[in-house]
């Protein structure tokens, strides 16, 4: 990883016109991805992840702002971008009636890769994707995980410097998801490839060097996963109260309690001083006849940080 910027956007805005007026899908997003970095754009459905990805790639025109890949402008240098960037769209489907090998050749031809180059690269990529035993199988008959790996191999056939992957692991089983991430890890460690991906899974943030949290068209936070997790003030206590709602209300009012999040039957309470507040919470709830089971301090994960950050952004103290 070095400090050269591979992908850059500055105040990008994207409006869509609909029957009911204008919808702002992307609302002033500025982000930078360094070369060799694995960058995760994380957020729920409808946050604007796919739209900003397509704007960066030049597949959608931007309403306002600047965006570029490898110094090429998204709107004006689309041919240069196409040559240097690999892309897997979310609803990406490989021709199901072509075999693994035929798919690879098809994408190589589309990208204008010469014969000699194809003979060198395709077997390498097929081996990399773990598909050597399946070269003659129809793409339509591959498992979900294998299809994703083939899609990745196809997106790499023109040896791009950057790949952009839109929810590549959606609906894939955990074993295949991990295998897919291992492939991305190899690309990062061995080839120094820049990887930009979108995901609704918070836990995939742990795989990135840098994370953008996106919500309602805006970047809520933009930093290393470690730093984002530290953005929530205080330390986190977890416990299961015997009477949920009264406990929640009571704890929210207590001194030293910075934020309360619900977690199934548990409460997650951010406090200033865990040793002291732990005792105080236990005593205060006991006075109301409420027991606290399994009280302990835990490390906040990306999801706790995300919830806290979007609550602050929308400025409500409502339940979550």
């Amino acid at each position, binding site marked *: *990883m070095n400090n050269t910027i591979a992908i850059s956007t500055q105040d990008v805005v994207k409006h869509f016109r609909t029957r009911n007026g204008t919808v702002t899908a992307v609302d002033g997003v500025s982000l930078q991805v360094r070369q*060799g970095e*694995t960058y995760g754009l994380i*957020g*729920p*459905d*409808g*946050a604007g992840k796919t739209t900003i990805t397509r704007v960066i790639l030049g597949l959608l025109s931007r309403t306002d702002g600047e965006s570029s890949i490898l110094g090429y402008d998204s709107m004006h240098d689309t041919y240069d971008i196409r040559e240097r960037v690999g892309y897997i769209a979310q609803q990406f489907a490989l021709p199901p009636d072509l075999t693994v090998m035929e798919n690879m050749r098809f994408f190589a031809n589309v990208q204008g890769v010469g014969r000699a180059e194809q003979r060198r690269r395709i077997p390498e990529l097929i081996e990399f994707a773990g598909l050597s035993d399946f070269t003659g199988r129809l793409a339509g008959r591959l498992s*979900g995980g294998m299809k994703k790996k083939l899609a990745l191999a196809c997106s790499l056939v023109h040896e791009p410097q950057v790949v952009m992957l839109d929810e590549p692991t959606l*609906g*894939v*089983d*955990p*074993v*295949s998801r*991990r295998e897919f*991430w*291992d492939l991305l*890890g*190899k690309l*990062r*460690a*061995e080839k*120094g490839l820049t990887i930009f991906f979108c995901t*609704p*899974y*918070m*836990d995939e*943030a*742990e*795989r*990135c*060097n840098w994370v953008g949290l996106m*919500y309602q068209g805006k970047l809520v936070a933009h930093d*290393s*996963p*470690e730093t984002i997790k530290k953005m929530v003030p205080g330390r986190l206590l977890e416990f299961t109260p015997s009477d*949920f*709602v009264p406990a929640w209300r009571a704890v929210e009012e207590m001194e030293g309690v910075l934020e309360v*999040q*619900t*977690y*199934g*039957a548990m409460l997650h309470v951010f406090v200033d001083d865990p040793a002291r507040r732990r005792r105080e919470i236990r005593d205060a709830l006991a006075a109301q006849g409420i027991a606290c089971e399994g009280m302990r301090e835990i490390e906040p*994960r990306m*999801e706790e940080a*995300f*919830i806290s950050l*979007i*609550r602050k952004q929308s400025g409500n103290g409502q*339940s*979550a």
Partner: protein
Amino acid sequence: MDEYTIEVNDLTKRFGDFTAVDHVSFRVKQGEVYGWLGPNGAGKTTTIRMLLGLLKITEGSARVLGYDPTKEAKTMQAQVGYMSQLFTLYNDLTARENIRFYGLAYGLARDELRRRQAEILEMAGLEGREDTLTANLSGGWKQRLALGCAIVHRPKVVFLDEPTAGVDPISRREFWGLIYAMAKKGVTVMVTTHYMDEAELCQRVGFLSQGRLVALDSPTRLKQVEMRGQVLEIDCADSEAAMRVLQAAKASGQFPFDEVALYGAQIHAVVPDAEAFRQPIEALLTSEGVNVNTIEWIAPTLEDVFISAVKPDAN
């Protein structure tokens, strides 16, 4: 009524040559929040459909509230709620009309229906949005309305099939709050998900893989019992270089790594014994010119455990 709300023995479903559900057995107590974690195609939905009496059972038996879904589906269904992954709501009806529609379909009397409408609108946080067309509600509202419609007849058991797919994290948290509020009132909940972090919220969770239940316990116990190997988190200045060294050591058999993977700026290595391997790994990296900041033994995630449980036994 039986001691268990749901009781399933050797349940199997075959479609031609394909076995979608393969000799699955489990029991769920009243008021329990019981979950299934598994990828698309693992057999989650097929099982729920058999338990609801919508799909024939090939082999084995099932009891829901003591009823046999193959013979007593009609009586059983009056006491069972079901929410599918495609929130089955009428987009051209308002929130209130959707509840009314489901209430009438379940044969609720006028007074009871009026009471339930108010209760459900409150539960789903839809007050002030009663007359909004469902099409114009956002994901979280729709999801809570769908749950409300599924429980309009006060069922004793509720089956939720991937109820939170595609919903934002705050709405997901709120939804789980509703699940636990129902359980507290004695309703039994069986829920499926493919989110690892959501499985942690169940009191007991089963791992489903290719039609088989490969593990079943509380999330805490699963992490203690089912995980083969221990996870070391290695933090180095140059994680890409460290990764190349460790991959080579794995390939040559120098270290018996179950797994070596990049996690952001760190590397996770699964080894048989964390304490025994910490020093040798550090020594190897240092000898290859990679500076090690820290090597820490960390708790496995539920995903680590799932992968360990479905992997063919290496021992």
